[in-house]
Protein backbone atom coordinates (compact mmCIF):
# COMPACT_ATOMS: atom_id res chain seq x y z
CA UNK A 1 0.00 0.00 0.00
CA UNK A 2 1.20 3.46 -0.69
CA UNK A 3 1.82 6.59 1.08
CA UNK A 4 -0.31 8.62 3.38
CA UNK A 5 2.16 11.44 3.63
CA UNK A 6 0.84 14.72 2.35
CA UNK A 7 2.92 17.56 1.03
CA UNK A 8 1.53 21.07 1.01
CA UNK A 9 2.63 23.53 -1.67
CA UNK A 10 1.58 27.01 -2.69
CA UNK A 11 -0.17 27.79 -5.98
CA UNK A 12 2.33 28.23 -8.76
CA UNK A 13 4.31 25.20 -7.66
CA UNK A 14 6.37 23.60 -10.39
CA UNK A 15 4.43 20.91 -12.25
CA UNK A 16 7.61 18.88 -12.51
CA UNK A 17 8.06 18.84 -8.75
CA UNK A 18 4.40 17.96 -8.29
CA UNK A 19 4.62 15.12 -10.75
CA UNK A 20 7.76 13.73 -9.11
CA UNK A 21 6.03 13.69 -5.72
CA UNK A 22 2.95 11.98 -7.14
CA UNK A 23 5.07 9.34 -8.85
CA UNK A 24 6.65 8.61 -5.49
CA UNK A 25 3.25 8.09 -3.90
CA UNK A 26 2.84 11.42 -2.12
CA UNK A 27 -0.42 13.29 -2.15
CA UNK A 28 0.04 17.00 -2.68
CA UNK A 29 -2.26 19.76 -1.51
CA UNK A 30 -1.68 23.02 -3.31
CA UNK A 31 -3.00 25.77 -1.10
CA UNK A 32 -2.39 29.35 0.00
CA UNK A 33 -2.44 28.27 3.63
CA UNK A 34 1.04 26.92 4.04
CA UNK A 35 4.59 27.72 3.13
CA UNK A 36 6.05 26.18 0.01
CA UNK A 37 6.96 22.49 0.27
CA UNK A 38 6.06 22.25 3.94
CA UNK A 39 5.41 18.68 4.91
CA UNK A 40 2.13 18.49 6.78
CA UNK A 41 3.25 15.81 9.16
CA UNK A 42 7.00 15.36 9.25
CA UNK A 43 6.70 12.50 11.72
CA UNK A 44 5.20 10.33 9.02
CA UNK A 45 7.39 7.82 7.30
CA UNK A 46 8.27 8.82 3.76
CA UNK A 47 6.28 6.77 1.28
CA UNK A 48 7.59 4.42 -1.29
CA UNK A 49 5.76 3.56 -4.48
CA UNK A 50 3.37 0.69 -4.00
CA UNK A 51 4.44 -2.66 -5.38
CA UNK A 52 0.81 -3.58 -5.83
CA UNK A 53 -0.78 -2.30 -9.01
CA UNK A 54 -4.24 -1.32 -7.80
CA UNK A 55 -6.13 -3.82 -9.93
CA UNK A 56 -9.44 -5.01 -8.59
CA UNK A 57 -13.09 -5.11 -9.61
CA UNK A 58 -15.38 -2.20 -8.86
CA UNK A 59 -19.10 -2.87 -8.81
CA UNK A 60 -21.56 -0.54 -10.50
CA UNK A 61 -24.52 -1.03 -8.16
CA UNK A 62 -26.81 0.78 -10.56
CA UNK A 63 -26.41 -2.17 -12.90
CA UNK A 64 -25.74 -5.03 -10.47
CA UNK A 65 -28.68 -7.36 -9.85
CA UNK A 66 -26.95 -9.28 -7.05
CA UNK A 67 -27.01 -12.47 -9.11
CA UNK A 68 -23.79 -13.65 -7.42
CA UNK A 69 -22.31 -15.04 -10.64
CA UNK A 70 -19.07 -13.20 -9.90
CA UNK A 71 -18.90 -14.75 -6.45
CA UNK A 72 -19.45 -18.22 -7.88
CA UNK A 73 -16.96 -17.62 -10.68
CA UNK A 74 -13.94 -16.10 -8.92
CA UNK A 75 -11.50 -18.69 -7.65
CA UNK A 76 -9.49 -16.21 -5.62
CA UNK A 77 -12.03 -15.15 -2.98
CA UNK A 78 -12.13 -11.55 -4.16
CA UNK A 79 -15.90 -11.35 -3.67
CA UNK A 80 -17.98 -11.75 -0.54
CA UNK A 81 -21.41 -10.93 0.74
CA UNK A 82 -22.24 -8.05 3.09
CA UNK A 83 -24.31 -8.46 6.23
CA UNK A 84 -27.22 -7.19 4.18
CA UNK A 85 -26.75 -9.96 1.62
CA UNK A 86 -25.25 -7.71 -1.02
CA UNK A 87 -22.39 -8.80 -3.23
CA UNK A 88 -19.24 -6.81 -2.52
CA UNK A 89 -15.55 -6.79 -3.24
CA UNK A 90 -13.90 -7.86 -0.01
CA UNK A 91 -10.35 -8.90 -0.88
CA UNK A 92 -9.05 -6.52 -3.52
CA UNK A 93 -5.46 -7.64 -3.23
CA UNK A 94 -6.42 -11.24 -4.05
CA UNK A 95 -7.37 -10.14 -7.55
CA UNK A 96 -5.01 -11.22 -10.32
CA UNK A 97 -3.45 -8.22 -12.00
CA UNK A 98 -4.73 -7.59 -15.52
CA UNK A 99 -7.34 -10.35 -15.31
CA UNK A 100 -10.85 -9.04 -16.12
CA UNK A 101 -12.49 -12.48 -16.31
CA UNK A 102 -15.24 -11.90 -13.72
CA UNK A 103 -16.41 -8.84 -15.62
CA UNK A 104 -16.81 -11.04 -18.68
CA UNK A 105 -19.24 -13.35 -16.94
CA UNK A 106 -21.31 -10.55 -15.41
CA UNK A 107 -24.57 -10.57 -17.37
CA UNK A 108 -25.24 -6.91 -16.55
CA UNK A 109 -21.83 -5.41 -17.39
CA UNK A 110 -21.77 -4.22 -13.80
CA UNK A 111 -18.15 -5.03 -13.00
CA UNK A 112 -15.48 -2.58 -13.98
CA UNK A 113 -11.74 -2.48 -13.83
CA UNK A 114 -10.80 1.21 -14.13
CA UNK A 115 -7.29 0.38 -15.35
CA UNK A 116 -8.46 -1.97 -18.12
CA UNK A 117 -7.81 -1.04 -21.76
CA UNK A 118 -11.18 -1.60 -23.37
CA UNK A 119 -14.73 -0.27 -23.13
CA UNK A 120 -16.93 -0.69 -21.17
CA UNK A 121 -14.98 -2.71 -18.59
CA UNK A 122 -12.77 0.35 -18.06
CA UNK A 123 -15.80 2.27 -16.79
CA UNK A 124 -16.95 3.96 -19.97
CA UNK A 125 -20.72 4.17 -20.30
CA UNK A 126 -22.34 0.91 -21.33
CA UNK A 127 -23.82 1.24 -24.81
CA UNK A 128 -26.85 -0.56 -26.17
CA UNK A 129 -24.56 -2.45 -28.52
CA UNK A 130 -22.59 -3.85 -25.60
CA UNK A 131 -25.70 -5.42 -24.23
CA UNK A 132 -27.20 -6.40 -27.57
CA UNK A 133 -24.16 -8.22 -28.73
CA UNK A 134 -23.57 -9.58 -25.25
CA UNK A 135 -19.97 -8.86 -26.01
CA UNK A 136 -19.12 -8.79 -22.35
CA UNK A 137 -20.78 -12.01 -21.42
CA UNK A 138 -18.89 -15.11 -22.35
CA UNK A 139 -21.07 -18.13 -22.09
CA UNK A 140 -18.65 -20.52 -20.53
CA UNK A 141 -21.02 -23.39 -21.13
CA UNK A 142 -20.99 -22.74 -24.85
CA UNK A 143 -17.27 -22.21 -24.80
CA UNK A 144 -16.50 -25.45 -23.07
CA UNK A 145 -19.47 -27.55 -24.09
CA UNK A 146 -21.68 -27.72 -21.01
CA UNK A 147 -21.67 -26.79 -17.38
CA UNK A 148 -18.09 -25.99 -16.47
CA UNK A 149 -18.03 -27.97 -13.26
CA UNK A 150 -19.67 -31.07 -14.66
CA UNK A 151 -17.35 -30.70 -17.62
CA UNK A 152 -14.37 -30.63 -15.27
CA UNK A 153 -15.70 -33.69 -13.43
CA UNK A 154 -16.24 -35.57 -16.71
CA UNK A 155 -12.88 -34.52 -17.99
CA UNK A 156 -11.23 -35.62 -14.78
CA UNK A 157 -13.03 -38.99 -14.83
CA UNK A 158 -12.23 -39.54 -18.49
CA UNK A 159 -8.64 -38.56 -17.94
CA UNK A 160 -8.29 -40.98 -15.03
CA UNK A 161 -9.82 -43.76 -17.06
CA UNK A 162 -7.76 -42.96 -20.12
CA UNK A 163 -4.54 -42.59 -18.19
CA UNK A 164 -5.10 -45.92 -16.54
CA UNK A 165 -5.42 -47.50 -19.98
CA UNK A 166 -3.15 -45.44 -22.16
CA UNK A 167 -1.17 -43.03 -20.00
CA UNK A 168 -1.42 -40.61 -22.90
CA UNK A 169 -0.12 -37.63 -20.97
CA UNK A 170 0.94 -35.75 -24.06
CA UNK A 171 -2.59 -35.75 -25.40
CA UNK A 172 -4.02 -34.66 -22.06
CA UNK A 173 -1.56 -31.83 -21.86
CA UNK A 174 -2.41 -30.77 -25.39
CA UNK A 175 -6.12 -30.77 -24.59
CA UNK A 176 -5.54 -28.73 -21.49
CA UNK A 177 -3.48 -26.21 -23.40
CA UNK A 178 -6.18 -25.94 -26.07
CA UNK A 179 -8.78 -25.33 -23.43
CA UNK A 180 -6.66 -22.72 -21.67
CA UNK A 181 -5.91 -21.00 -24.98
CA UNK A 182 -9.63 -20.75 -25.70
CA UNK A 183 -10.25 -19.20 -22.31
CA UNK A 184 -7.29 -16.87 -22.61
CA UNK A 185 -8.40 -15.54 -25.98
CA UNK A 186 -12.10 -15.29 -25.22
CA UNK A 187 -11.75 -13.65 -21.85
CA UNK A 188 -8.47 -11.78 -22.14
CA UNK A 189 -7.02 -13.61 -19.16
CA UNK A 190 -3.27 -13.20 -18.72
CA UNK A 191 -1.33 -16.42 -19.28
CA UNK A 192 0.21 -16.17 -15.80
CA UNK A 193 -3.22 -16.31 -14.21
CA UNK A 194 -4.17 -19.44 -16.09
CA UNK A 195 -0.83 -21.00 -15.34
CA UNK A 196 -1.39 -20.32 -11.65
CA UNK A 197 -4.83 -21.90 -11.52
CA UNK A 198 -5.27 -24.51 -8.83
CA UNK A 199 -5.84 -28.17 -9.57
CA UNK A 200 -9.19 -29.42 -10.85
CA UNK A 201 -10.05 -30.80 -7.42
CA UNK A 202 -9.18 -27.50 -5.77
CA UNK A 203 -11.22 -25.56 -8.35
CA UNK A 204 -14.16 -27.85 -7.69
CA UNK A 205 -13.84 -27.40 -3.93
CA UNK A 206 -13.60 -23.62 -4.22
CA UNK A 207 -16.50 -23.52 -6.65
CA UNK A 208 -18.65 -25.50 -4.26
CA UNK A 209 -17.77 -23.20 -1.35
CA UNK A 210 -18.49 -20.09 -3.42
CA UNK A 211 -21.74 -21.54 -4.75
CA UNK A 212 -22.88 -22.42 -1.22
CA UNK A 213 -22.03 -18.88 -0.07
CA UNK A 214 -23.99 -17.36 -2.96
CA UNK A 215 -26.97 -19.64 -2.39
CA UNK A 216 -26.99 -18.94 1.33
CA UNK A 217 -26.99 -15.19 0.65
CA UNK A 218 -29.83 -15.57 -1.84
CA UNK A 219 -31.80 -17.74 0.57
CA UNK A 220 -31.39 -15.25 3.40
CA UNK A 221 -32.01 -12.20 1.28
CA UNK A 222 -34.26 -13.09 -1.64
CA UNK A 223 -34.45 -10.23 -4.10
Amino acid at each position, binding site marked *: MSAVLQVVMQPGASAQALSALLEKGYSVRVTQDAPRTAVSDPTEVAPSPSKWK*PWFPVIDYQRCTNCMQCLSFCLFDVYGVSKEGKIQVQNQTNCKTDCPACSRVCPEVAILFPKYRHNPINGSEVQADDLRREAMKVDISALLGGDIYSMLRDRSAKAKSRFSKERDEDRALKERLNCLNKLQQAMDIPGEVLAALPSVDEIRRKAEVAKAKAEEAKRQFPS
Partner: protein
Amino acid sequence: MTPRILYCHCAYARVLAPEVKQAVLAGLADAGVEFEAVPDLCEMSARRDERLQALAAEGPVKIAACFPRAVKWLFHSAGAPLPEEAEVLNMREQSAEAVLHNIVGVKV
Protein backbone atom coordinates in the same frame (compact mmCIF):
# COMPACT_ATOMS: atom_id res chain seq x y z
CA MET B 1 -19.63 27.59 -3.23
CA THR B 2 -16.49 27.18 -5.31
CA PRO B 3 -15.93 23.54 -6.22
CA ARG B 4 -12.79 21.98 -4.87
CA ILE B 5 -10.43 20.46 -7.40
CA LEU B 6 -9.01 16.95 -7.26
CA TYR B 7 -6.45 15.63 -9.70
CA CYS B 8 -5.61 11.90 -10.02
CA HIS B 9 -2.17 11.08 -11.43
CA CYS B 10 -3.00 7.39 -12.07
CA ALA B 11 0.57 6.67 -11.02
CA TYR B 12 0.34 2.88 -10.96
CA ALA B 13 -0.80 2.25 -14.52
CA ARG B 14 -0.32 3.66 -17.99
CA VAL B 15 -3.91 4.22 -18.90
CA LEU B 16 -3.70 8.01 -19.09
CA ALA B 17 -1.68 9.57 -21.86
CA PRO B 18 1.38 11.08 -20.11
CA GLU B 19 1.15 14.26 -22.15
CA VAL B 20 -2.47 14.79 -21.12
CA LYS B 21 -1.95 14.29 -17.42
CA GLN B 22 1.24 16.35 -17.37
CA ALA B 23 -0.47 19.18 -19.23
CA VAL B 24 -3.44 19.13 -16.87
CA LEU B 25 -1.16 19.11 -13.83
CA ALA B 26 0.94 21.94 -15.26
CA GLY B 27 -2.20 23.89 -16.14
CA LEU B 28 -3.53 23.57 -12.62
CA ALA B 29 -0.20 24.58 -11.12
CA ASP B 30 0.10 27.58 -13.43
CA ALA B 31 -3.48 28.70 -12.87
CA GLY B 32 -2.70 29.62 -9.29
CA VAL B 33 -5.68 27.73 -7.94
CA GLU B 34 -5.89 25.54 -4.87
CA PHE B 35 -6.20 21.86 -5.60
CA GLU B 36 -5.40 18.44 -4.26
CA ALA B 37 -3.35 16.02 -6.33
CA VAL B 38 -3.30 12.33 -5.45
CA PRO B 39 -1.14 9.55 -6.84
CA ASP B 40 -3.91 7.07 -7.64
CA LEU B 41 -7.61 7.06 -6.80
CA CYS B 42 -7.88 3.29 -7.31
CA GLU B 43 -5.23 2.66 -4.70
CA MET B 44 -6.89 5.11 -2.29
CA SER B 45 -10.24 3.42 -2.84
CA ALA B 46 -8.77 0.01 -2.06
CA ARG B 47 -7.42 1.42 1.20
CA ARG B 48 -10.72 3.21 1.89
CA ASP B 49 -8.62 6.33 2.39
CA GLU B 50 -10.26 8.80 4.76
CA ARG B 51 -9.46 11.69 2.43
CA LEU B 52 -11.90 10.31 -0.10
CA GLN B 53 -14.61 10.43 2.53
CA ALA B 54 -13.64 14.00 3.43
CA LEU B 55 -13.66 15.05 -0.22
CA ALA B 56 -17.02 13.45 -0.86
CA ALA B 57 -18.52 15.07 2.22
CA GLU B 58 -17.38 18.61 1.49
CA GLY B 59 -19.77 19.50 -1.32
CA PRO B 60 -19.06 20.40 -4.93
CA VAL B 61 -15.88 18.97 -6.38
CA LYS B 62 -14.34 18.76 -9.84
CA ILE B 63 -12.25 15.68 -10.41
CA ALA B 64 -9.72 15.25 -13.19
CA ALA B 65 -9.31 11.50 -13.51
CA CYS B 66 -10.79 8.87 -15.84
CA PHE B 67 -14.28 7.65 -16.75
CA PRO B 68 -16.98 9.22 -14.57
CA ARG B 69 -18.66 5.84 -13.98
CA ALA B 70 -15.39 4.38 -12.73
CA VAL B 71 -14.68 7.33 -10.44
CA LYS B 72 -18.22 7.34 -9.05
CA TRP B 73 -18.06 3.66 -8.06
CA LEU B 74 -14.46 3.89 -6.81
CA PHE B 75 -15.63 6.50 -4.30
CA HIS B 76 -18.66 4.38 -3.46
CA SER B 77 -16.41 1.36 -2.97
CA ALA B 78 -14.38 3.40 -0.48
CA GLY B 79 -17.51 4.16 1.53
CA ALA B 80 -17.47 7.74 0.23
CA PRO B 81 -20.29 8.26 -2.25
CA LEU B 82 -19.78 11.39 -4.31
CA PRO B 83 -22.35 14.18 -4.08
CA GLU B 84 -24.70 14.74 -7.01
CA GLU B 85 -22.94 17.94 -7.97
CA ALA B 86 -19.54 16.28 -8.32
CA GLU B 87 -18.14 16.62 -11.83
CA VAL B 88 -15.65 14.19 -13.30
CA LEU B 89 -13.39 15.16 -16.19
CA ASN B 90 -12.09 12.23 -18.16
CA MET B 91 -8.39 12.45 -18.99
CA ARG B 92 -8.64 9.14 -20.87
CA GLU B 93 -10.86 10.68 -23.53
CA GLN B 94 -10.82 14.45 -23.18
CA SER B 95 -7.96 16.69 -24.19
CA ALA B 96 -5.95 18.54 -21.56
CA GLU B 97 -7.38 21.77 -22.98
CA ALA B 98 -10.95 20.61 -22.48
CA VAL B 99 -10.27 19.40 -18.95
CA LEU B 100 -8.53 22.61 -17.92
CA HIS B 101 -11.11 24.76 -19.61
CA ASN B 102 -13.81 23.08 -17.59
CA ILE B 103 -11.93 23.22 -14.30
CA VAL B 104 -10.22 26.58 -14.34
CA GLY B 105 -11.45 28.17 -17.53
CA VAL B 106 -8.03 28.55 -19.11
CA LYS B 107 -6.37 27.37 -22.28
CA VAL B 108 -3.11 25.42 -22.13
